């Protein structure tokens, strides 16, 4: 094991000499006097008694501190405004690949899984989406400061080596094969985005193309890191047995010396929302037909986002939605589900239907089209008001766990620029009138749709490497 450490230290030196990493930046350690100051402090209270202390620092970092009794543990969640939306053609998959790299070590924690686990039993994980990358860890209270130090070093002082980069590339390729190439559901999702988008980076989804992942250079990764991992692109939430003032001081100590990295925003290409419908059929070794139906969706800034999301709940919620009654109950489909959350740029609202084995693609499509005609009549009156109540408890239930709650705050802060967006969503849905749903449903029908059909076959239709 010791030999491995020596090798790692050596390879880091190689990495420094062969890359554009600035030594000055590396020595600009967290022990330096903080440059940042507190710009703003406020207490948010989405429900009576549920308090969140928000602190905004002058280097752009936003912190959300949530003191609560938590059995001697603290949750730390850091979200970055970087996801696959920030990638270019030929460089896809980099945001997600970089998420893997963030576990390879920092100056004080050269092997975090080893050092932090051994010191204090840290547990950590992360996810990458189109618009964000989020890291979370749960630690014992006595090691809370280690967690902040670790997160601060990950922000600006990551240790990355070509060797580590190549190993993570292998894990990402395997993840891609498992979740997209050998999985009909994953393939459907990937193909919906590939087919719906022409030029926007949402086209490729965070997993990217295998060729791009394999071709990405170590320098690409370093450049990506230095451009995107900065205090002004991050929000941090801390939940647990902590005190706000002490936490604020620790944040200044560990993040205060970082300067913001200028970011002018992205000039992403705009898709044509009103265009002809598109359809693609894929043959895979599956037992049932998979049908995906997608339409361009509103963004966080669009007031229609609330009607769109709630319309999807009414239409295709996997438990009590309309399609559950018309397709699953009638023995046509095995399951239905919807994903209609807003995104930063117009993304996709998707409906997924998995047929009962031996139900043909033609039958599934026909029944789906017939079902759509009866939706608005079904959703009217009491049912509309009742399902609103159900929606509220399901939203609250999804934030019951402390880590889920902290993740929701950070994720919304980074993407919607409103940490309380989930609570706003509940309140805005309560205000919706049936006419809003009716209008949104009709608008959705006019927007360009994309349909993917996966049909059972003897041989697999491999993923085409079309990257236009």
């Amino acid at each position, binding site marked *: 094991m010791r030999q491995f450490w020596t090798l790692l230290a050596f390879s880091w030196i190689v990495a420094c000499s062969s890359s554009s990493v600035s030594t000055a930046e590396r020595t600009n350690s967290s022990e330096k006097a903080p440059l940042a100051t507190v710009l703003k402090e406020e207490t948010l209270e989405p429900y009576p008694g549920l308090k969140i202390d928000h602190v905004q620092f002058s280097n752009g970092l936003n912190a959300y501190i949530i003191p609560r009794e938590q059995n*001697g543990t603290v949750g730390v969640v850091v979200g970055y405004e970087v996801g696959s939306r920030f990638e270019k053609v030929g460089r896809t998959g980099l945001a997600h690949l970089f998420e893997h790299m963030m576990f390879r070590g920092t100056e004080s924690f050269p092997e975090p899984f080893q050092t932090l*686990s051994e010191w204090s039993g840290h547990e950590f994980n992360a996810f990458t989406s189109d618009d964000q990358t989020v890291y979370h860890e749960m630690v014992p209270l006595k090691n809370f400061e280690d967690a902040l130090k670790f997160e601060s070093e990950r922000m600006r002082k990551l240790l990355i080596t070509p060797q580590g980069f190549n190993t993570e590339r*292998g894990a990402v390729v395997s993840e891609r094969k498992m979740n997209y190439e050998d999985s009909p559901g994953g393939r459907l999702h990937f193909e919906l985005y590939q087919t719906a988008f022409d030029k926007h980076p949402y086209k490729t989804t965070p997993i990217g193309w295998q060729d791009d992942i394999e071709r990405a250079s170590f320098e690409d990764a370093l450049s990506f890191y230095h451009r995107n991992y900065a205090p002004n692109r991050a929000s941090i939430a801390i939940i*647990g047995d902590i005190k706000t003032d002490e936490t604020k001081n620790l944040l200044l100590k560990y993040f205060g010396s970082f300067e913001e990295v200028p970011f002018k925003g992205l000039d992403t290409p705009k898709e044509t929302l009103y265009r002809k419908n598109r359809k693609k059929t894929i043959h895979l070794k599956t037992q049932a037909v998979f049908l995906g139906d997608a339409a361009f969706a509103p963004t966080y800034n669009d007031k229609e986002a609330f009607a769109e999301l709630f319309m999807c709940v009414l239409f295709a919620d996997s438990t009590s939605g309309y399609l559950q009654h018309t397709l699953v109950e009638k023995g046509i489909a095995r399951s239905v589900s919807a994903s209609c959350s807003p995104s930063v740029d117009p993304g996709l609202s998707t409906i997924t239907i998995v047929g009962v084995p031996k139900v043909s693609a033609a039958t599934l499509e026909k029944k789906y089209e017939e079902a759509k005609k009866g939706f608005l009549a079904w959703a009217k009156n009491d049912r509309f008001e009742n399902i609103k109540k*159900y929606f509220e408890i399901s939203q609250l239930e999804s934030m019951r766990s402390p880590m889920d709650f902290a993740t929701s705050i950070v994720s919304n802060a980074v993407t919607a620029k409103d940490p309380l967006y989930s609570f706003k969503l509940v309140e805005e849905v309560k205000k919706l009138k049936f006419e809003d749903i009716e209008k949104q449903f009709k608008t959705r029908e006019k927007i360009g749709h994309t349909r993917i059909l996966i049909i059972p076959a003897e041989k697999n239709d491999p993923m085409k490497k079309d990257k236009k």
Partner: protein
Amino acid sequence: MKNRIHYSASLFLYFVLFCGLSPLSYSKIFLDYETDPLPLIKINFVLPAKEAFKVDTDNLGLKILEECFESGTLKFDKQKYQDLLASYGASLEISTGQSYQEVNLTFPLSGGKIPEGLIQLTKDSLEQPRITEETFERARKLLKANFISTLERDSSLLISAMNRYMGAKLFNFPFYETTTFDRVSISNVQDLHKNYYNNSNIWMGVIAPKELKEEIRKLSQRLFSNSGDIEEGMLETELKSGFMLPQTGKINPTFILIDKKDLAQIDYGFIRVSHQKKENQHELTDKIINYLLTRAGIDSIYGRKIRAEKGLAYQVSGIYTEYLDFPVISLFSNPQRSKQKEAVEVLSDLVKSTFDKADLINTLPDPFFNGKMLSYKNSERQDGATPDGRLHRRKDVATNDMSFDFYKSNIDSWNVSKTQATKRLTNFTKSSSMVMGVIGDANELEPLIKKSFPKYQLVKISYKDVLENTWLK
């Protein structure tokens, strides 16, 4: 709003009521409370399904019963039933575990009372679920479709095949299969409901403000009418599950090879099952061993080897710590097809060092071992940090998934040495059966397996035979 303000008074004040337990009488309902900062009430009922798991038609019947519950009541069809539930903002979900069935009722706190209509609806649902010819047939068809579709994912297909092999060869355990769907009858389902949905042995976990305690008590009396005793507080011994498997048989080391072409990756794994039932004295050590090997994720021993060091696969996991009350050690991973030769060699090395030499844990650096102990303790602390997590642990005691001794032990006192873990692993190896499995192209994999696992009996099955469950006939 008044209630929300009222509720905030008890915000963050988690409490558990431990009342003295009196001798149990003929009917037992156990109430256990927690509070939560969110304005929601959650009630979890657990009803042991006793002997139902010994017969494949009953085993499947419980799943059909689950569907019938969700189809409404004899009075209300599914649509009307869901409309009524939604009118209270409530959800009522049923699920089936290894030896019990559970009901989860969640609804918003409003007015300091539980609405009478919701109590009546829940009572109707529990007493008169919609078990009709129509719902039975629909459930049978839907579950059959689900059963087939679950196997779409290769990892599920592999685990299913290995489970079925072990179930058949080790335990004579009746996993239901495609033919069971033709043999199950509506009377199976009606009998299951009659036998298990009564007041004889129920655990109720409640997350609600303490002010609602009396309301909850009344609710439990209404739901399970004629109930005699209602015990409040922690249940120290498990509910009378009655699900006891006979002593296991023994099988020679076996390697199941499922022949499926055109895959981008191969799924492989092993399950090693003890021949001796779990014992409380080994509970912590068994949990630590599983945590070290796989449950710590990519920082587990197997995770480090397969993913962090070799970059062979994304997924490295273990699926159980016990299999039908018998301790288990398992591994599942999914290396890329292009790396399958190296993957089989790594798998062989791991099996040798874990079981044949049994020195895997003993040779770990002390800091790593101690760090994992800490990490395990932290994860248990975190589980106990939420009302849901605390109630879940208490449900585990009620269903015999955790001993009461383990539950009440102080996490700070937990300690297992490398020597203890190694000794346990050695004894486990001496008295256990091993089944390995892989799914991929047999032409490519068979020579690799024969070379790396020469002592294993190779069972080669076509993809079609696994899907149709004809291979164990």
